[in-house]
């Protein structure tokens, strides 16, 4: 601390000695509001700038001391046309770092380019908004679990400017009314949780008057050391976002251990400086949300959703005390049509840059020391370009995911010191052929096709090395025998069908007495039997001669013989029944004559069935 104060005194003396570069401008009225309610310091200033000199002025300089400038995360200057109540549209003005001559080295100078030059005597109102991270210094730096967290904030009571400031005031908003100490100057008053300095009038350029506020701030000092957001576009209908957080409690470090019994008894008192939940506001229709870390799923999270947003409340595995670290990953899918659009033959992704964990709702502030946003485009994207509303470091990478051959192009954007104000939309433009969508399914189909073809080929090719070995030949012969036996069986089965037809014809005969039809059936059956016999002959010949079929042959032979006998019997029966009908003999007579045939037939049929089964099992 001490060194810094010394530095200020030194610095003020330099400031007074040096001559301002352009003193033609006068800040006639300045109103500065510093918001210290979270751990991001937000300074909003309204400046009324008057041109007192003769020349037209087109830029306004802002000076910020280096110790603050290194923590500057966000700077936005805007002006509006018109006066008083009838404000015109706000125009944001470009801001850049300049190094004018004669400016003290301890200051960083930013130049705001005005949209049109300021003529002599004209005035303009500027709004300057700046956000600083890591500007609140915990003091004491180590506290116990039960202590509250006190922080220091330093700034100047006077607006540090290269111009003369005619009238100015400063108000500092604190999170609570509990203030340890603050620098008391003239015109200082503390009203509830707000400290007011000023008004001060007619101060020369580079006036500096250090003030220090020491106050209680128990708001979560959530700092993400590193956040990697991975946005992956799939043209199959979803945008998948994975965010890897490396989170630390950036406030006063915890000392003296952590007592669970005290924490669980009175978490708000015995753990005032800690925080245990964060809320992420995700876009509406977010789905497949997950929350995990390196060692698995974290079960303490909950999700609500309505048409405007999805709210994800997550709890780290343990309450976060000062200096404690944790890391986790959240991921979610978003519908493609909400974020991907098409214009001029190009597609573009329009999605927010910052992290979705929101301070406003949860009072959790979230600063990314280093934000790495990766946009993973589909494989085959071309002509990639990015447009971001602020400066980032950019490069491209290649990522291999499922079924990728050349890999997917990745656009990487890196930004340090990110505050929620950076939560703006950015665009990634690229060209993509719709046909490329089919590449991966086709690859899969082709892969499976090849696999099955390989299987078929394997089944149908002969892999044995020695084609002349005995066992191999025997196997071939056995296969042949089996095939033949199968053929024989199928012929026998067909014969059996013919038998059934004959039987059916007799049945018909007994019903309608149509002898002619019955005879016709018989004729057909005769022909069929002959044909089958002809077919059987070579097969049986083969079986008989083949040594492999030695143990099958007797059975097959028996089967064929039985079947033949059956044919004869069947024919006999058939002819006798027909004869009876032709002679018009009585039903009983027919029965008597047929009975013996019938019995024999049934027995034969049974035997044939048995044989069929036996052969089948060989």
């Amino acid at each position: 601390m001490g060194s810094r104060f010394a530095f200020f005194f030194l610095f003020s003396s330099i400031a007074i000695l040096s001559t301002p570069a352009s003193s033609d401008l006068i800040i006639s009225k300045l109103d500065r509001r510093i918001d210290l309610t979270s751990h991001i310091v937000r300074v909003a200033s309204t400046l009324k700038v008057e041109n007192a000199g003769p020349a037209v002025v087109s830029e306004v300089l802002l000076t910020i001391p280096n110790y603050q400038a290194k923590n500057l995360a966000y700077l936005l200057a805007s002006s509006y046309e018109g006066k008083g109540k009838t404000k015109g549209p706000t125009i944001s003005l470009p801001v850049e770092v300049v190094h004018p001559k004669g400016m003290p080295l301890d200051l960083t100078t930013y130049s705001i380019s005005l949209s049109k030059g300021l003529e002599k005597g004209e005035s303009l109102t500027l709004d300057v908004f700046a956000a600083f991270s890591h500007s609140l210094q915990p003091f004491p730096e180590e506290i116990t679990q039960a202590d509250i967290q006190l922080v220091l904030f330093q700034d100047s009571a006077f607006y540090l400017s290269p111009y003369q400031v005619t009238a100015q005031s400063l108000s500092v908003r604190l999170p609570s009314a509990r203030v340890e100490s603050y620098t008391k100057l003239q015109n200082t008053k503390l009203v509830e949780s707000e400290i007011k300095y000023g008004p001060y009038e007619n101060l020369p350029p580079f006036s500096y008057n250090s003030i220090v506020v020491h106050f209680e701030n128990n708001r979560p000092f959530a700092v993400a050391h590193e956040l990697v957001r991975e946005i992956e576009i799939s043209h199959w209908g979803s945008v998948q976002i994975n965010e890897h957080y490396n989170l630390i409690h950036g406030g006063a470090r915890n000392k003296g251990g952590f007592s669970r019994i005290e924490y669980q008894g009175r978490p708000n008192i015995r753990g005032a400086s800690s925080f245990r939940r964060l809320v992420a506001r995700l876009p509406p229709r977010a789905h497949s949300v997950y929350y995990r870390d390196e060692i698995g799923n974290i079960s303490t999270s909950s999700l609500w959703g309505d048409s405007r947003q999805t709210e994800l409340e997550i709890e780290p595995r343990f309450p976060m005390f000062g200096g404690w670290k944790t890391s986790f990953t959240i991921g979610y899918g978003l519908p493609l049509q909400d974020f991907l659009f098409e214009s001029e033959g190009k597609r573009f992704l329009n999605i927010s840059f910052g992290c979705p964990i929101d301070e406003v709702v949860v009072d959790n502030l979230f600063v990314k020391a280093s934000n790495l946003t990766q946009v993973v485009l589909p494989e085959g994207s071309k002509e990639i370009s990015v447009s971001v509303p602020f400066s980032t470091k950019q490069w491209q990478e290649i990522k291999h995911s499922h079924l990728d051959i050349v890999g997917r192009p990745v656009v990487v954007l890196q930004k340090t010191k990110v505050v929620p104000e950076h939560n703006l939309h950015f665009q990634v433009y690229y060209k993509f052929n719709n046909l490329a969508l089919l590449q991966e399914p086709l690859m899969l189909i082709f892969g499976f096709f090849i696999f099955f073809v390989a299987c078929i080929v394997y089944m149908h090719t002969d892999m044995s090395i020695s084609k002349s070995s005995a066992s191999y030949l025997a196997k071939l012969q056995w296969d042949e025998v089996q095939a033949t036996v199968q053929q024989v069986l199928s012929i026998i089965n067909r014969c059996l069908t013919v038998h059934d037809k004959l039987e059916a014809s007799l049945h018909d005969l007994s019903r309608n007495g149509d002898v002619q039809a019955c005879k016709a059936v018989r004729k057909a059956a005769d022909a069929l039997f002959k044909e089958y016999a002809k077919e059987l002959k070579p097969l049986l010949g083969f079986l008989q001669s083949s040594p492999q079929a030695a143990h099958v042959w007797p059975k097959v032979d028996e089967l064929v013989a039985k079947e033949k006998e059956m044919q004869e019997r069947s024919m006999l029966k058939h002819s006798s029944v027909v004869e009876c009908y032709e002679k018009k003999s009585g039903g009983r007579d027919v029965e008597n004559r047929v009975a013996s045939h019938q019995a024999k037939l049934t027995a034969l049929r049974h035997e044939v069935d048995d044989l069929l089964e036996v052969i089948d099992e060989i």
Partner: protein
Amino acid sequence: MGGKHESANGLKAPISTPTPPAHVSLRPDFFPNLKSLKLKTKQQELLLRVTTLCLVYLLAFIIRLFSVLRYESMIHEFDPYFNYRTTLFLTRHGFYEFWNWFDSESWYPLGRIIGGTLYPGLMVTAAFLYWVLRFLRFAVNIKDVCVLTAPFFASNTTLVAYFFGKEIWDSGCRHRRGRPHRHLPWVHLAVGRRVAVNTGSLAWALGSAFGYFYMVSAWGGYVFIINLVPLYVLVLLITGRYSMRLYVAYCTMYVLGMLLAMQIRFVGFQHVQSGEHMAAMGVFFLMQVFYFLDWVKHLLSDTKLFQDFLRITVTCAVSVGGLALGVGMASGFISPWTGRFYSLLDPTYAKDHIPIIASVSEHQPTAWSSFMFDYHILLFLFPAGLYFCFKRLSDATIFIVMYGLTSLYFAGVMVRLILVATPAVCLISAIAVSATVKNLTTLVRTKSKVIHTGSSKGTASAKTSAKASLDQSLPFQRNGAIALLVGAFYLLSRYATHCTWVTSEAYSSPSIVLAARGAHGGRVIFDDYREAYFWLRQNTPPDAKVMSWWDYGYQITAMGNRTVIVDNNTWNNTHIATVGRAMSSYEDEAYEIMHSLDVDYVLVVFGGVTGYSSDDINKFLWMVRIGGGVFPVIKEPDYLVNGEFRVDKGAAPKMLNCLMYKLCYYRFGELTTEYGKPPGYDRARGVEIGNKDVKLEYLEEAFTTSNWIVRIYKVKPPSNRW
């Protein structure tokens, strides 16, 4: 006591192939319609077989996914965290780095040579699968590969078991079972071995040698195989079943398997030097003698001469072998049996001599109830299967019988070995079921045919009726057969249900995430372990040394990424005893020990708030015993009152003031755990604690998880002297 509990469950999925359609030829009227659709009977059978196998494969895979689906894709147990961590290392750094890995994160300050002290099979398999999938452009996560390797191999095991069964029985062995278990190569080997003997083929013997190599690379239980196989060969020799096939198979397998196994650095020269492997070697030489004798017998036609020769040779061989063994043992070249091996042969050995082996719950003798629980009807089918095996005795069935009987014995000695016995029990029971069902179906089939023909024709022929009357010699035979069949299928389906239930209830609850039912029926998850490990990982210095009981060592290194003093690889008993001594000493003495071990944090597991019973207080007596086994300062009776272990007011004073007690119950006396009970009521043991005013002098509470299950203390630096 040690929280290890592997999923040693015997699971089977009985899916019975319906008997090949017997009625096709009896139904000529349907025949033409079905003709186009009908496959040949062989094809039908093949289709049914393949479908059934596919279903069984799927089932075996799915049944292992209970915990993954109910919780998440993560490793749930204690020991596999080591495998996970090493697999991770293997995939990141490659095989050579892995092989030469010196791990300084465990066994501080000794460290552990990982490459030389592990069975790399599982890790290499998982990493291989991972690389293959990566090559095929599937961007998989190594963790998921590790998680799903187990179900994948469970399915493979089922297939292998089926083919094994088929090989030893016949192709009609219709019941296959899914027997999920982690250490799969068992059956791979067994099959190779079996097939080798059946066919006498060099190729199969080679295959079994590689199977053996894989087994050795995966699990220390290979010792069982290397003893079982010689035993089997010996039995074959004694029963006069020696054959050329046996000689080829055994010698190939032994020589090749031994050479291959020596490539595993952890096994090294044990094959020729350690007592456990001597049986295999002895049988190998015996085989040579047998072969030699056979050859001599072939040359000598004189029987008498041969008898004399035989006597001389056998005496010489036995005495030379015995002498070599004696000299080897005496000179220390051949190491004696290890404690684990002894404790298998004599269940009481470990209790008296090596408390560290006895302290593991997996190493306890199996209770009867757990046999019933795991095997269900297999317990009854097993003897039946043995009967069928003996009825049809062959080389193959002898093997399965021996495998079944020996492994069953070991399963009785140690709980974890149930998983070794399971495949054998399953197979033998399958044989029983298969044989029974086959007999019954033949009965039912013949009868139904007779009746069918009889009724369709109305007039039964003399022959048929004669046959029928013959069958009717046993009254109600057919009905009886049908009833028995139905009964068998009912039992089998009950068994399938039981197995699914057992897997779901008993073997799928992770020990890393605990779940309970809340007051409103909702599920409450106690994720305290990971809370603590993640806290260690994030909020302690990267070089911090954590002292805990060894059960949590692997997890702390894998999930907490911090150095531990001891872990689940219990290779150094003294080191563990030192930790046990620290835990059971007074705080100031313990501080000296911890200081000498450079300990920064002490982690204890405490279930007093949640009623979680496998916590450190319940394991405490083992710490005392193990500590006392090396350091006689620690005496078990000091911690007991009348031989009873208590933590309430009546506890021994040393107990109430030892480090473990203090760490577990620090500030516990202020907490009301249960409504209507005094503060400091320990729910795990159901008593009010005896020392509510615990003061810590040398340690401070660093972190306690939300349900108090894990408590971490920081060891304070030594105080300044001035």
